[in-house]
Each structure stands twice: as C-alpha cells, then as structure tokens.
C-alpha cells in the first residue's frame, strides 16, 4: 500500500524534464509531496494533479490577472471527495480555492498562496428535476447551458444566462452571483438559487436555504451567493425553474448615433416597460462580432440595441410596438424583428461571443463591469469615449444596457511597451467616473483580486468591516479562497498561506 501510494504520488507530482533528474519540480517543495500523498490517499491518484503544467493552468482564469499560484489541483467527484480535500488541506495548513470553468473575469479563481485548488468540473451531473417544486438539483460543475438544454423538454429553463453560458459552471455562477442579458426582467443568480449544499471550511456539510418560500433563520443562502468561493465550496445547488414564455419577440434597433441608442434605453424603462433584455453594442464591437458570427448585425450603424420582450402573445405584441415606437422617436435608422428562432439564435450568438471576438481587433482586453444609473447612460458613454481617447486606446462597448451595467472593453496589445499602464489608468478613470455618478463597482463579474483595491472607493471602513463579518461567520480562519474581494486591510490577518508567489519561474 505504502509503496503504491508513493508511486502514485510521484506520478501525480509530475514528471521532470527527461534526463534532468536532479531538477526539482518547480514550485513543488517537500511539504507538497506530503500534501499530495495525503490527497492521493484521500481521493485517488486519478483525481489529483500536481505537475507544473496542471498548476500553471489552474493559476489563471479569463481575467488578465496572471499572478495566481496554485498548489496541487484536485478534481473531486463527490461531496465527500470535497470534504476529504478540505480536511487534508487543513491538516497541512493550506487554504482551498474552488474553481469552475475559469471564465471569471476578475481573477476570482486565481489561487493565491499555493492553496489546494478544487476544480469542480467533474461534478457536472444534473441530480434531480423536481417539477412539482419548480426546482432542479445540480452539481456545481454543470455547465449553465447544459442545464438549460436538459430542462428544455420540460418547457422550463434556468433564467440567468451569462454570455459565457456555453462554458461557465453553475458553481461559478453562484459564487459570482452572475447575471446575463435576461436578468433584466428575471433577476440575477441569487433570485434563482433556492438552496445550496456547502462544504464549509471546517469540512462540515451544511445545506443553506431549502425549498420552502421562507426558510427559518437568516438568509444564509442569500449571503452565500456571490461570496466568490470565500465562504465554502458549493457541492449541490437547487435552482429555480422558470417557465418558458409563450411568446418572444427579439428586435434589432440600429442607430446613427450612440447617444440616440442610449436615450432609447432610458426611455423604454421610463415608459414602464421591462423587456426581458436590452443589450447594446457599438460599431466597433458589431464589426468584431460580425467577423465571427455573421449574425446579420449592420456594420454601418454607430450602435445597435438588441431588445427582447417576452410573455403572453398579446402583451408581447404591444410591448414590441411600444419599443419600436420609442426607438423611431429617437432616430433609429432601422427596426428589425427576428423572423424566426433561427434568426433570433444568430443574433444572440453574436452578442454572446462579443468578448471573445475582441481578439479580432487586438490580442488583449481589459474590461470593467461598473453599473451606472440607467437614466444617465448617454452622459456616461460620452465620458467613456472621452477617457479612452485621452489615453489613446481603443474601446468596444457591449453591455447590459437595460440595467446600466457597462462593459467597456479596452482592447490593446500587451506586447507594445507602456500600453498596460495606459489601460490601467483609463480603467481607473472609468471606475471613478461610474462611482461618482452613483454607480457600483461591479454588476456581475465580481471583485476577485482585480477590483479588490477599489472596494475602498465604494465602501467605508464600517461597510467593509460588516462584509468581513459575514465572511468570518462562514469561514473564521480564512481558509477558503483567501485574498479575494476585501481589500488587504479588511481581509483576515492570519493568511500565512498567502506567501507571495515564490519566484519559481514560469511554472511557479
């Protein structure tokens, strides 16, 4: 037994360069060997990887933050695997960082201080569809779109639809309280999660919330959603099922002027219409998207709005007409209604590939996710273009206009010296401007590591102290995904584990 375990551990720790036996596995010191051995014993060699390549990749997500530093990577297959991993990590005084698909845009899944990374992708099953209670229990690694597809035969769906839905996981959605185009009318993830089974930092398993309308006690479920992996590991989620609307109308409104599009958004809301979605893209973004998706967006418009109304047919027709009217009154150059499901799907595919398509313009992008009052969109957009011009950068705007959730994408080439600084500077100005308008730091991507130091700009010391109490109630010793969300002065002091990434070279 001991021998085979040692062999397995050696295998898991990774290969060395051939013919270079002396060189240690970068970043993996002796403590790691013991830790890895214990992990292997706890959940099996095929569920643990500690080689340089695996750790390098587990250190990053879709954000530009590249300083993450993963310890061994585990691929638990069950709640009890997760429990075991947390126990082993605790025994070795190591933190634990959960990871979904790594599509997060704020570095939330970038591990700090070589924690044990729990990659939840193997827990991807749909556990139960309970139509009588209007819920489904799913494992956290299930991909958002796979869930909706599995639900389709029942005439229901899972409403939050991040643009990354083809890849991101329900666990990541819960941790980031993710939004999506259709959250305008349906609400963000928090409104669609009824209960969560969580492995806590002391390795106990607790179910937060239940299927009743008003569970007894504090709304721990609500407190957990959006906690970015810092309050425990979600191992099963009860999501609310939403009835498919009987009718849907998707409209593409094009404008000669970005301001007209923004005015239209504010006017729709002011008219008391709550469409299922109102998305906006400016010309540069449309061009990038069309190159990939050929969705039929007009390349010559300065801005387009994708508006969807849904519900019973009568109201959809009325709301659709009103939206079209408002658009025309605001100088829309064209108002197009998707003729069929195919066209509708194409338009959405275009919208949802927008971030990815940026590389058609520049190889890197940095984006903010601030929210501003939706009545001030015109002004805000003007300011953004002005800021970006001043820093001599390129911006693509694509965002959830209906709730004022901006996504100005600063596209750049990090290989050009000095660009990084300009991008940071412009980003900072956009954030300050948004907050000055009464806005919020992030609407759906979360704080992670990237926006952490901006928290002081939005919240007072008292506010942050209250937030850290919430965190500490769940995880008193800061063992779960440490170092995120709260600015350094407000996060746990005892994160000895947060040693700065040791200079172990590229594989560090």
């Amino acid at each position, binding site marked *: 037994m001991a021998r085979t375990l040692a062999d397995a551990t050696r295998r898991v720790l990774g290969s060395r*360069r051939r013919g270079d036996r002396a060189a240690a596995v970068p970043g993996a010191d002796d403590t790691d060997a013991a830790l890895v051995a214990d992990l292997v014993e706890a959940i099996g060699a095929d569920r643990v990887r500690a080689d340089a390549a*695996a750790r390098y990749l587990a250190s990053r997500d879709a954000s530009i933050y590249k300083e993450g530093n993963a310890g061994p990577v585990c691929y638990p297959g069950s709640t009890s695997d997760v429990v075991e991993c947390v126990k082993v990590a605790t025994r070795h005084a190591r933190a634990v960082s959960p990871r979904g698909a790594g599509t997060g845009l704020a570095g939330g899944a970038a591990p700090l201080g070589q924690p044990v990374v729990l990659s939840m992708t193997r827990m991807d099953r749909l556990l139960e569809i309970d139509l009588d209670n209007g819920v489904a229990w799913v494992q956290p*690694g299930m991909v958002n779109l*796979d869930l909706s597809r599995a639900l389709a035969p029942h005439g229901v769906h899972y409403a939050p639809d991040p643009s*990354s839905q*083809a890849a991101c996981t329900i666990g990541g959605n819960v941790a980031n309280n993710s939004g999506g185009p259709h959250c305008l009318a349906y609400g963000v993830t928090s409104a669609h999660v009824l209960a969560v089974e969580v492995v806590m930092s002391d390795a106990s398993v607790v179910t937060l919330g239940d299927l009743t309308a008003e569970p007894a006690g504090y709304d721990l479920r609500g407190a957990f959603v959006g906690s970015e992996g810092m309050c425990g590991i979600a191992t099963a989620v009860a999501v609310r099922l939403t009835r498919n609307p009987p009718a849907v109308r998707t409209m593409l409104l094009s404008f000669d002027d970005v301001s007209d599009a923004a005015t239209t958004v504010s006017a729709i809301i002011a008219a008391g219409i709550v469409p299922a979605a109102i998305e906006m893209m400016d010309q540069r973004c449309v061009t990038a998207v069309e190159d990939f998706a050929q969705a039929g967006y007009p390349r010559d418009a300065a801005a387009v709005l994708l508006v969807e109304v849904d519900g019973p047919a009568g109201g959809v027709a009325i709301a659709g007409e009103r939206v079209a009217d408002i658009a025309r009154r605001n100088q829309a150059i064209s108002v197009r209604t998707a003729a069929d499901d195919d066209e509708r799907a194409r338009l959405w595919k275009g919208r949802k590939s927008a971030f990815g398509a940026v590389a058609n313009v520049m190889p890197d992008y940095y984006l903010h996710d601030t929210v501003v009052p939706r009545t001030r969109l015109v002004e805000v957009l003007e300011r953004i273009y002005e800021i970006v011009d001043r820093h001599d950068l390129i911006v693509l705007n694509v965002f959830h206009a209906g709730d004022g959730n901006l996504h100005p994408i600063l596209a750049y080439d990090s*290989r050009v010296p000095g660009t990084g600084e300009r991008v940071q500077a412009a980003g900072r100005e956009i954030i300050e401007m948004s907050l000055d308008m009464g806005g919020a730091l992030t609407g759906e991507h979360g704080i992670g590591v990237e926006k952490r130091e901006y928290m002081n700009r939005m919240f007072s010391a008292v506010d942050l102290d209250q937030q850290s109490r919430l965190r500490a109630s769940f995880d008193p010793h800061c063992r779960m995904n440490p170092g995120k969300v709260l600015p350094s002065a407000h996060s746990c002091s005892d994160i000895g584990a947060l040693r700065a990434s040791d200079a172990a070279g590229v594989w560090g």
Partner: protein
Amino acid sequence: MHLGLDDDELVACVACGLCLPHCPTFVITGRDTESPRGRIALMRAVQNEGAPVTDDLIRSMETCVQCRGCETACPSAVPFGHLMEGTRAALAGAGRITPRWQRLALRTLRHRRLLLAGSTLLALAIRLRLVPTKRLGLPARMPLRRPPLRTSGDDVWLFTGCVMDAWQRDVHLAVQRVLEAAGAGVEPTGGAAPCCGALHIHAGLEAETKAMARRVMDGLSGDDRPILVDAAGCGASLKDYGHLLGTDEARAFSARVFDVHEWLAERLVELRSRRPVDPLDVTVAVQDPCHLRHVQRAHQAVPAVLAPFVADVVALDDDGLCCGAGGAYSVMEAELSRAIRDRKTAAVARSGATVVASANPGCSLHLAAAGLDVRHPLELVDQALSASRS
C-alpha cells in the same frame, strides 16, 4: 524552446474559455491541461516564457485529437490547427514525440502497392484471428480482394487515397456510381496521388507531408478538373496544401478540391431528375466528421444530399463533438478515445436512428468498432439509387 509558432496566432487567444465545451478531451477529463485554452497557454509558456518542456506538457499536446472543434467555436479565430501542427512538428523535430515505429508505419502510406499488399496480409491475419481488432480499433472484417476502379470519363477526379482505398474500396465504387448518376464522368486518382499526408502532419512530420503534397499535386496537374474527395480527412488535408506549401500553385490546387457532398449538393437536381427514387426505409443519424465540420466547414452538405434518399435524417444533439477517432489517435490514446466515443454512441442512441452516416473512414471504423451500423452517406444514396434501378 522556440516552437516556431507565429506570435500573432499565438497571442490571439484571450482565454475566454468558449472553446471548452467543444473540446472532446476537456469534456471527458474536465482538466485544463486537456483543453484548447490550456494547450495554447502552455505553448505560450514554452515559446514566450521559456518554460521547460516537461513530459506532462507533452502529454497535454499528445492527448489533443486535433479535431479542431475548438477552432470553429472560437470567436477570436485562433487558428488552433496550425498551432498544434506547429507544436507537434517542433516537438517531433526535437525528438520529443512520435516514436520511431509510428514514423515507420506512416512511411508505408506513401507506398501504395506496399500498403495494398500489407492490407491484404492484415485482412488475412484478421480472418485468422491473429490480430486483436477491438483493441487496435481495426474493422472486424477487411476485404481480401478489392474490385478494380475504372475510369468513366474526365469531368472530375475522385481522390482514392491510401488507407481508405485499401480498406474501403467499396465506398469509392459506390461514390463513383452516385457521381455518374449525377451525370459526371469520373477518373479515380489511384497511383497518381497515393496519399494526402493527413496522418503525417498530425504526427508532426512536416517535411514528409510537404513532400507528399508535392507528389499529389504533380500527379493531378495538367488540367483544372475538380478533385472530389469522399474522405473528410483527406479532403481537409488537400484543401490545406495552399497553407502548407504557401505557393500560388498550391493555393490554386487547393481551390480545386471539394468534398464530394459539397459538390453533389449543388447538383441535387441532376441527381434526382434521372429517375424517381424510393427512399430507403431507415432513420439515419449524420455524424459530422471533424474534418468536414470544423476544418472544411462543409458538413451541412451531407444531410442535404442524403435527405431525399432515406426515410429520415436526424441530427445528433452533441454540437458535432468529435467521436475520438482522430487518425492514429484511437490507437495511441485508446482509453481517452473510447471515452469520447461513448459520448457519441450515447448521442446516437438518443437520436433513435438505426444507421449512422459518416463521411470519413477513420470515424466509420472507430464507430463501427463500437457496434454501430456505420455507412458512408453515398453508400446509402447508391443503395437507394440501385434499388430503384432494379
């Protein structure tokens, strides 16, 4: 180590992850090391940051099926196929991948006679149960005798290639009959163009591939007849000569290449007008070979051509996820390959179809080995045509 990859291609990945669900190895393993995004990040680490080429990194590259599902899914148009071919070429050049026996085996593909003879031997061995067909992913029965190919005119070339000609001559014959039914005179390429080089480029043998490409182009030069291909992998390979060799001549050659369904889809009227056809009474699931769907992006032609000739054509609900065949992959990475195939067979079962139509021999063999009834789409068309003929 410099992998010789184009820096602009390499940095085009923005790590958005939208390719993940389209990658068969990620879907199975859930590991970033087995994902397109991860593989690209590792290539970058090696080429731009001087990271060492560890065995684990090599495993990450070797487990890629090279299906290029990631490429069609990528909104940033990252040319993953090129990056992976380049990486493998660099690793093979440095002696880090492709064992010698595999190289030798691939070398025989260039020698048509040798291959045909070898295949006959293999077929004999299989019949005598000397070879474990299941484990090696070989067809349970191979032809001992191959009916000859004949030239029927000079409208189009029919590319007959290497392995497929050796193992599935019947398919070529069926395809030829269908083309003739559509009014085309067909000349099989036979010895004029022995092998397209697809398997070689996959294995990272770039120099060999280039030599083979030149040989094929020489063999088929002298006119500008369309070159029709009934094996998706070969078609993809021939269509890529323009990029591989980078010459005007090669680009002109590639422009002449069509998947046979692509060509027929434009001539459905001719094909159907000759005589009324009774559709075969089968429900057919169309499996999209990656080389047709992700590389040639011509997969929609298959159901279009097939539909009039069978009772029902159903699409699989797996977004065209690879079946795990991947040329030599099914042998080299047998375990992963089978796990990927299991997803495909499950999708076929869900579809309710009894017959699977596949336009690529590699996929056909791989799926048939799982017990599915797999046919080339044009075999079915041919069958429907000949049934109404009699």
